[in-house]
């Protein structure tokens, strides 16, 4: 039997609420990897930790707010983005990151998502996309691929999913990227980039959810999905946005990369001195 | 003392502004209480528009005009619609070029729109009417209305509006014999 290794410290001690660990996520879940990238980006950002704020909605990814040792707001389902807008506009010195899931941000919060991108409010969004509602046991979400099985689409989903980069680009975001939980260096790099990017920036993180989604779709283990990403992901910066839909079943590439990086003016509250 | 005043005309005649000026005159520049109410929504667009004022020498409980003591109308439609709702013996003031009152009705008339056109701006017909109202209704001091005009219109048009007010006020005195 192996001897357990006990350590006194962890590289992320400064930024994680150690007293809240172990986390609630299932074995093989990808959210922790995305959170790790976010945490490392914060440490590397040079922005004081006290100025970083994380806002989340409801769902597995929404629990990230509870593990980060920074000011953290775990809001209602879908409303993380407008809550974050209030924080940012009331205190523009804060570096606000919304960390939440695809269901929270694109279904119940979908209207807020596109309008925040349209306004180009200066916040960063990390959207973990695991193709289903994991917290409630694996139901159809707005990103569930066509034909995929979930507990509410037992015969395969009859709906088409959102293509996040296409949606966000059309809505007006300044920065849109997609990575997976195997692309940890790219992901951390782009989260760091978002902190310095004025306007609305968004990174989609494809992540395994073996318990909620994988087991019904022949990706039984988290590692299987990581291998799938490794084999099929193609870095394709600048590819036409309408080709970025995801079909996990077909023998198709999954495109990742930076798809939008532009400098539309960010949202600014109206001030009389700016008009005169 | 409680007086109910209704100003009515069609959209674009500045009925709302006239009511606001009068309300300010009563409640800010005289020692009276005044409440102004207006109809809102689809029913307030097009057709007859009205502004209603209740004026009293003590706090006003019920703020709406029920039976107007004074009715000022700048359009036939407004007259036709609101005359029956006013008191039978109400003081009725009309733009005599725009309103043909019923034969039994005793009204005070002024060609407010024409006088405003003579001043070069038809849009001040409402303020001409306010001048005439002030001179004839006997419910508000001239100075109070003048102060209210000054504080309600853009500074570039204060002079024009004062002229309009004076025109209406003087018209009442010129025609005193007819009243």
């Amino acid at each position: 039997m192996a001897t357990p290794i006990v350590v006194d410290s962890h590289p992320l001690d400064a930024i994680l609420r150690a007293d809240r660990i172990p986390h609630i996520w299932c074995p093989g879940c990808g959210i922790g990897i995305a959170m790790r990238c976010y945490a490392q980006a914060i440490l590397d950002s040079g922005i004081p930790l006290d100025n970083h704020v994380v806002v989340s909605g409801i769902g597995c990814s929404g629990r990230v707010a509870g593990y980060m040792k920074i000011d953290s707001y775990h809001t209602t389902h879908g409303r993380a983005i407008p809550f974050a807008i209030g924080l940012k506009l009331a205190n523009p010195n804060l570096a606000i990151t919304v960390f939440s899931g695809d269901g929270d941000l694109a279904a119940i919060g979908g209207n807020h998502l596109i309008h925040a991108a349209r306004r180009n409010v200066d916040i960063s969004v990390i959207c973990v996309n695991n193709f289903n509602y994991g917290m409630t046991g694996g139901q159809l979400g707005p990103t569930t691929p066509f034909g995929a099985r979930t507990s509410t689409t037992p015969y395969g989903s009859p709906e088409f999913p959102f293509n996040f980069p296409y949606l966000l680009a059309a809505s007006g975001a300044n920065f849109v990227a997609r990575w997976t939980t195997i692309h940890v260096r790219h992901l951390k790099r782009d989260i760091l980039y978002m902190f310095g990017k004025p306007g609305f920036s968004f990174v989609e993180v494809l992540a395994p959810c073996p318990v909620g989604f994988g087991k019904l779709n022949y990706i039984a283990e988290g590692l299987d999905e990581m291998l799938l990403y490794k084999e099929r992901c193609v870095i394709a910066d600048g590819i036409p946005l309408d080709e970025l839909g995801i079909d996990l079943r077909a023998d198709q590439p999954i495109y990742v990369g930076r798809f939008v990086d532009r400098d539309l003016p960010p949202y600014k509250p109206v001030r009389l001195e700016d008009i005169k | 003392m409680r007086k109910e005043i209704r100003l009515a005309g069609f959209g674009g005649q500045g009925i709302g502004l006239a009511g606001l000026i009068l309300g300010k005159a009563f409640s800010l520049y005289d020692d009276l209480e005044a409440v102004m109410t207006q109809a809102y929504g689809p029913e307030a667009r097009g057709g007859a528009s009205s502004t209603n004022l209740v004026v009293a020498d003590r706090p006003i409980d019920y703020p709406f005009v029920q039976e107007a003591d004074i009715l000022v109308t700048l359009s036939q439609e407004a007259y036709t619609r609101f005359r029956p709702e006013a008191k039978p013996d109400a003081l009725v003031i009309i733009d005599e070029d725009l309103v043909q009152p019923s034969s039994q009705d005793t009204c005070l008339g002024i060609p407010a729109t024409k006088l405003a056109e003579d001043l070069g701006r038809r849009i001040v017909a409402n303020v001409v009417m306010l001048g005439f109202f002030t001179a004839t209704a006997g419910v508000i001091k001239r100075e109070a209305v003048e102060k209210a005009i000054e504080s309600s219109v853009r500074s570039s048009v204060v002079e024009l509006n004062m002229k309009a007010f004076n025109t209406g006020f003087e018209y009442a005195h010129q025609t005193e014999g007819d009243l």
Partner: protein
Amino acid sequence: MTSTGVLVGKHFYQGDEACAEGAIAAGCRFFGGYPITPSTEIAERLARRFPEVGGVFIQMEDEMGSMAAILGASAAGARAMTATSGPGFSLMMENIGLAVMMELPCVVVNVQRGSPSTGLPTLPGQSDVMQARWGTHGDFALAAFSPWSPQEMFDLTVHAFNVADRYRVPVLLMADEVVGHMVERVVVPPEDQIPKWERKRPDPKRKDSFKPFLAEDPDLVPPLAHAGEGYRVHFTGLTHDEQGYPEMDAEIHHRLVTRLVEKISHNAEKIVRTEDHFMEDARIVVIAYGSTARSARRAVKDARREGVPVGFLRLVSLWPFPIKQFREIADQVDAFIVAEMNLGQMALEVERHVRRPVTGVYHAGGAMMPPDRILEAIREVANRGDTHRR
């Protein structure tokens, strides 16, 4: 650049305008809202005025977003407000609950119109008063006020911010279309006469041991740390312990919810406001609030001229309900009449607290209650003999 921007002096304001000016005078510098009749003039005035005073005005995509945005602004330290009417109020319920649970101060103005559903957008109602009390799910307590004049749209907006900040609770200003749209004199006092109750703030020297939901004071209100101050707080809508961490535990849940409710009920005397007239000899009391109270006062005056010993009690605050005032009065009078622009909502609450007959004068909304209807009810109750001579 921020400036106080308070327009001290006498004005002839619409109720909605007075509310906006009250917000500015109270130091509110964040408004997130969605246009809806008959509250829109509040947003319109703040859209024009906030840029002058350094406030943030943002028109959100819907009322759920509006409510979330003002909570975010509140968490960052701003006095924040939104304004709406029935349909939008329903959409705000979700995050009013979040405000209760996170104990984030905010002010929500509901200029009530005829309801349910789309109802009568341009015409008055008072049928959201129970929704104000019980609208979001769960057990909770908050404060709600009912202005009856443009002057009170100003004064009670200031008071609403003070109560919200002092007790870390969402405060609702339950106006109605009559009061929102009528124009009347409003006196804006000099700034040093505008009351300001501050948020209770944590001790920076105890930053490391700070527990954001630990209420050590008898008022049950924990100090509020704002985002960016270094307290590294965690706020959640989940049931949480004193540190703010989620806990799925019945005892912690019971303790939290009980404190959230008692925080208001124990401090009710400092929050509630009522106004009464002619109570010295009253055997019958007419209860009303908002615009209906104007009709009620007129009816009471008319009835007294007819010799009926009737008094007038106005609910300036609806919630918490002024239980103490009612219990005191109930011992001295024989009957109550409740007049309201709904089919009997606050009357239920009056019935709960007085062991005297309660007669309702109800109208579903769409027009201000005519004083004569209340006068008739007073005459009926007087003749029916509920009023005994002692």
